């Protein structure tokens, strides 16, 4: 099977996810600086989620450039990734209601861990489908960045039980690592 429809479906799902997140934002209760400051953490979580979803889409886009065909296993791995991404709007709403506190920030970490794990599964499924000598296998290489982010997310999750802001700092750090475009695929293409 060609990857066209998988890409179109993924683009559609991610486009909706990244757009409906804004519905979870709250307006300041009154037009005062204090009220604006109160909604800033939520705005920050929204921005972080937006960047994260954008990073996943970017990497998906780059990776699929070098893919010629997909199979059933790839479709399911992709769906699993979309499932974890679909929970971000819910987590933003939770932060909006409970504030930057242990439970929502830890849940955010769990979702990030599971999404990055699903992405690793997707890479494996694609390599299994295309072969060890394929462009995608060469480009993915040793997956240092993937495992590094996976580890930092796990630490971030744990840190939420001590200091939720420390977790957020770690999540932001991973986002910065990925903000640099994935040259692996650009070089192979």
């Amino acid at each position, binding site marked *: *099977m060609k990857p066209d*429809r*998988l890409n*179109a*479906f993924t*683009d*559609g*799902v991610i*486009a*909706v*996810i990244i757009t*409906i997140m804004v*519905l979870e934002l709250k307006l300041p209760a009154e037009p005062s600086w204090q009220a604006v400051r109160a909604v800033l953490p939520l705005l920050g979580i929204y921005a972080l989620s937006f960047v994260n979803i954008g990073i996943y889409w970017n990497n998906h886009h780059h990776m699929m450039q070098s893919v010629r065909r997909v*199979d*059933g*296993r790839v*479709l*399911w791995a992709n*769906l699993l990734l*979309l*499932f974890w991404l*679909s*929970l971000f*709007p*819910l987590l933003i*709403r*939770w932060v909006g*209601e*409970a504030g930057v*506190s*242990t*439970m*929502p920030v830890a849940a955010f970490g769990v979702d990030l861990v599971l999404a990055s794990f699903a992405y690793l599964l997707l890479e494996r499924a694609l390599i299994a489908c295309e072969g060890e000598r394929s462009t995608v296998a060469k480009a993915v290489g040793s997956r240092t960045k993937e495992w590094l982010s996976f580890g930092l997310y796990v630490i971030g999750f744990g840190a939420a039980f001590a200091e939720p802001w420390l977790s957020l700092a770690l999540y932001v750090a991973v986002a910065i690592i990925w903000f640099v475009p994935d040259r692996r695929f650009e070089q192979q293409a």
Partner: protein
Amino acid sequence: MNTNRLNSFTDGVVAIIITIMVLALPVPTGGGMKALAPLWVLFAAYALSFLKVGIYWSQHHHMLLASRRVSGPALLANLFFLFCLTLMPFVVRWIGEAGITRDTVIAFGVVNLCCTLSSALLVLTLLRANDSDSPIAKAARNRIKGPVTISAYVVAIGLAFAWPLAAVAIYVLVALMWLVPDKRLEQLIVDA
């Protein structure tokens, strides 16, 4: 007509359906672990619904890969299929508000039965639009999962009146059955 626009329209609609279901999920009210306890059931219902919509999309993807042409009736059947799918977020919202009760479990079964039946109707219109030696005609010759699914949903809806959890178990089993890839169909599509 070729299948391109029907596919991209369907992808757009299904993408929205599968994503807005999350809006029906409530967030925990407190900060502690105990606040999560009443929610895991709803979360499981969400995950199952997400999986179901994903399965419908995957089936659609396979059916349309095996088709070379679509017809006017196929467009209408597809629209009917999409209509049934749009009821999934609605039933998830009901489950979110009322929980796993007899009525919500029945409604979930009825919506899924409608999705499956409308998907079967779409196959019929695709068979008419394509030649008898097309991949979809070959793939349709010995389908077993379709009739099994329809019967399972009918049984589950009946059981839900007395034992809602038994119906839920059937819904899960049907989903697991569809997760097993259809190697024969994939081979037909590769050959096509």
